[in-house]
């Protein structure tokens, strides 16, 4: 079952790209020109996240090199070991609800620390890919219409985040740990 799903992962990208291209042909959309137009945004997005990446990667690097991270890791290690979760993924679990670019920086840090094919990297990648920054979204969307009382919106978002974290740990264990 897991093997089937694993190989299915490989088909998703070609499938989506295929659907996009076939639909474009049917609708007589100039696919090449649209591609170029959209692709030209790639550079500006990468440049736009540089300040965020610098901020978070400097923080994590200093936090690690100074030994400050040992305090945090020693505190959390028993819990993480118990659930067979790599301790390196501790930081990303906090940043994911705060900032998307920061989480990406932490992911890059985890890759540098544990190697790109490690279990910690895979778990961190799934956590990053399945999260959206709860607090940022709340401030932008509610700020735009001047809502002051958020009621249960944040709580529901955070609870869903926690469920997502637990799900990420479980699903990754099923897929990537044998």
């Amino acid at each position, binding site marked *: 079952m897991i093997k089937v799903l694993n190989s299915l992962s490989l088909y998703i990208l070609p499938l989506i790209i295929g659907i*996009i291209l076939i639909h474009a042909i049917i609708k007589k959309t100039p696919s090449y020109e649209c591609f170029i137009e959209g692709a030209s945004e790639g550079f500006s997005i990468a440049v736009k996240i540089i300040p965020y990446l610098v901020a978070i990667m400097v923080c994590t690097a*200093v936090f690690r090199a*100074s*030994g400050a991270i040992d305090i945090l890791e020693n505190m959390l290690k028993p819990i993480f070991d118990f659930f067979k979760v790599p301790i390196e993924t501790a930081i990303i679990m906090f940043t994911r609800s705060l900032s998307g670019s920061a989480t990406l920086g932490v992911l890059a840090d985890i890759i540098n620390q544990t190697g790109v094919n490690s279990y910690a990297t895979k778990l961190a990648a799934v956590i990053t890919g399945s999260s959206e920054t709860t607090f940022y979204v709340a401030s932008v969307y509610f700020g735009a219409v001047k809502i002051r009382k958020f009621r249960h919106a944040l709580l*529901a978002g955070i609870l869903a*985040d926690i*469920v997502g974290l637990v799900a990420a740990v479980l699903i990754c264990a099923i897929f990537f740990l044998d």
Partner: protein
Amino acid sequence: MNYIFAFLLLFSFICAIVNNRLDLAVNSMLKSTKDAIEVAFSLIGIMAFWLGMVNIAKKSGLMNLFSKIIKKPLLFLFPDLKENNEALSNVALNISANALGLSNAATPFGIKAMENMQEQNKKKRVATNSMCLFLAINTAGFQIVPAVVLALLTAKGMENPSQIIIPTLIVTTIAFISAIIFSKLLERVFK
């Protein structure tokens, strides 16, 4: 974020002095700025490719088609938007754009949806049930293809980056569904 940023750096410096590792800390601080640039630049290629592909879907009307399909089930989740067709369309477009990984395109739809919902809101300072549900769904971050993560994994040389797609899809779906359940349950508690 301001406090976290300042606290992280200051706390690290104190730890570095206590642990007698100030040289290490300073060197890694300077070196990590270069790492950040490398990460950002390694994303350009795949980001460009994916944004190009998705732009085709946007221009050919595929994204609109998708949002039309999900409108019916959305009405079931947002019953008070029955008379507010524009709000419902914008919610659907926002979710479609997010699903494709176009968060930049999704935000304007999301803000418009909020404005549409605000029009029929009786207490302008208090969020309605639909607003809260919409926000919770958004924070769950439903995404079919995590393009940025794939870009980073590819740049760092992972053997088979697409292996994370299905697990990510399962996790994001679980988070999405639980966001709906939590909002529906909590809206009775927070009146």
